[in-house]
């Protein structure tokens, strides 16, 4: 239902507008109360892509649930499978071989690189730099090539299994990945320069979308969003898993608390990922890549965590002595980062809403719809993303 507010005509019309472009950021349904141009309140509604995965996992055995967990998210799918495998390995109380840990770490960091590049491209696109978006995504293709060399597919590579990994990494693959990383490192340094020194980008990102440190701690925000507000928390450092306690790396934090800080944190983190992968490629030793695990998992309960590109992923699981899990609970990072949208958006301009919501790197895949409620006139509008953009940029015309 659309009821146009203010100066335009009143008409009721239903608009089914969904995401048109695979690169458009996914947005949840935000009910935004505006007073003129300033946002006064935000209510976040999610659930458009609830698929009942946790219930489905209870009816599938552990291996099938593994592949189900891979399909939760397209961008961070390897982290989901790694955390799931760690969960079942904790339930079984087994240790995977060291080579498997290194291969998992390399794939995890490659995924972090690929995810941050995706985000950087979309951020550039949101700011109006179409060309920057194309350049960054072209370079992202090289990372996807590296992932394909390692796993066999660009997305949803079934590399993980309970007890280790399924494919080994040959010397040839190692050399090729090393070459790709050299090129990507150069490109990243160039993009960092662009994002931190270009005047148009600085004008649209500095001082906008502030999330203060105390709010970040109060709402338990995770991931680069929290690190850009000065909260020094990264699962890889505090609760190391896989090969992270055998490599040297820095945790990037920034005290800026605005969008520019989040940009910097993500891009500098990507450089750290490149350094981690290089160390892993050097340190990896020969050995087994998986160990055999029994089908039946004894009664137990366990928890496992990982640092996804967007934050902390927590898997809690319970087994019951059969080959099907009794209960698995998944908590993804955007779930908790939703709470950060409200403090970031209040008292900001409506025109900055897309870039602010994008800066927490949301990963839902909902239909994008935004509801705008004008507090003065009490009228509600539901707009699709395209129309919201037009409306937002057009409102400043009058």
């Amino acid at each position, binding site marked *: 239902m659309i009821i146009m507010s203010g100066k*335009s*005509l009143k008409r009721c019309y239903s*608009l089914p507008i969904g995401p048109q472009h695979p690169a458009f950021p996914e947005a949840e349904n935000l009910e935004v109360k505006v007073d003129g141009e300033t946002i006064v309140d935000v209510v976040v509604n999610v659930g458009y892509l609830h698929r009942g995965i946790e219930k489905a996992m209870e009816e599938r055995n552990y291996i099938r649930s593994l592949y189900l967990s891979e399909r939760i998210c397209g961008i961070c799918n390897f982290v989901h499978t790694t955390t799931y495998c760690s969960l079942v390995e904790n339930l079984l109380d087994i240790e995977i071989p060291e080579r498997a840990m290194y291969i998992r770490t390399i794939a995890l960091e490659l995924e972090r690189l690929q995810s941050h590049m995706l985000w950087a491209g979309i951020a550039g696109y949101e700011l*109006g730099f*179409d*060309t920057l978006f194309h350049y960054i995504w072209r370079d992202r293709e090289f990372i996807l090539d590296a992932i394909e060399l390692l796993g066999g597919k660009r997305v949803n590579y079934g590399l993980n299994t309970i007890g280790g990994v399924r494919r080994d990494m040959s010397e040839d693959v190692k050399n090729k990945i090393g070459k790709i990383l050299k090129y990507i490192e150069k490109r990243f340094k160039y993009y960092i320069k662009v994002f931190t020194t270009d005047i148009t980008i600085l004008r649209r990102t500095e001082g906008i979308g502030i999330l203060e440190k105390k709010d970040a701690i109060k709402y338990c925000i995770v991931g680069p969003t929290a690190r850009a507000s000065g909260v020094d928390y990264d699962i890889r450092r505090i609760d190391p898993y896989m090969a992270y306690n055998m490599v040297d790396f820095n945790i990037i934090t920034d005290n800026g608390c605005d969008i520019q800080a989040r940009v910097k944190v993500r891009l500098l983190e990507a450089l750290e990922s490149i350094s981690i992968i290089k160390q892993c490629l050097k340190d990896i030793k020969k050995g087994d890549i998986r160990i055999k695990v029994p089908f039946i998992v004894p009664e137990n309960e366990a928890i496992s965590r990982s640092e996804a590109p967007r934050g902390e992923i927590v898997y809690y699981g319970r087994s019951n002595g059969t080959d099907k899990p009794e209960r698995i609970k998944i908590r993804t990072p955007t779930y908790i980062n939703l709470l950060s949208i409200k403090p970031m958006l209040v008292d900001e301009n409506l025109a900055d809403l897309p870039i602010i919501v994008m800066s927490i790197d949301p990963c839902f895949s909902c239909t994008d719809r935004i509801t705008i409620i004008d507090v003065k006139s009490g009228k509600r509008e539901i707009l699709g993303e395209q*129309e919201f953009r037009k409306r937002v*940029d057009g409102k400043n015309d*009058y």
Partner: protein
Amino acid sequence: MIIDAIKIFVYPGMIFIIIFSLFYFGFLRKITARMQNRIGPPLWQPIFDIIKLFSKENIIPENAKLGFTLWPVLSIASILTAGLMIPIGGDVVLNTSGGIILILYFFVISTISSFLAGLSSGNPFGIVGGLRKIVQLISYEFPFIVSLIVPALFFKTLSPFMINSYQIISGPLFLLYPLASSAFFISILAKCEIPPFHIPDAHQEIVSGYMVEYTGTRLAYLHLVHMVKFFVLISLGICLFFGGSLTFVDFILKSFILLVLITIVKVVVARLRVDQMLKFYWFFGFLALLDLLRVMM
């Protein structure tokens, strides 16, 4: 009589203008893609697009108001008429003595027809898109009009054909009046919604805004308006500021250079915010006013 008909419809008339504007638009997309490290569509892609649109089903929505068919036709007719008045390669179809003012009017009729097309679609988004077009028109008409007056006053004639001939003799006007020329260049970008003046993020080239309810033939006309406007503005620019065109080859060369310049600007800049854009327009408008004062002295 027959020669006149050929002139009006074939060369340098409507068919020539339409085919060339489709090609120029194809070049724009191709060069943009290459600069963005992509391959891009083939050069004749816009031709395929228009032919495909002509073969699609024509749907008139229930809420459509009077003039749903009329406004797109009026839009394309007026922009083509404006194009007919501009000399191409020394040859002009409609040689009028009040050409500049008529061209201005036809441009405005075309934009208002697009706006009315949006209004008559019965869809709130069509209305919003149409309103936006009018608002933009009010904003960027100022530098456009001022920059049009400069060559008219300088050569003391309102006929584009005469201005073209004078320019061939006296040399390009942009060397003498660079400010007015840049104002005209900026208004090309603004009228065709090329970056940095593409405010709505949803690319206006794809169906959105005032075109939202149109399908089939009428949509083909609206897309054609967009592309023909681009070509007509380039040829107007050559005629008024960039040295005129003596022969056809001359025209192709100069218009191609302008096309490449516009594409470079399109690819390299980001989107301006609305307030920045308005400041830009008025700044260039006042620069053009300076040139105008110089001409009047």
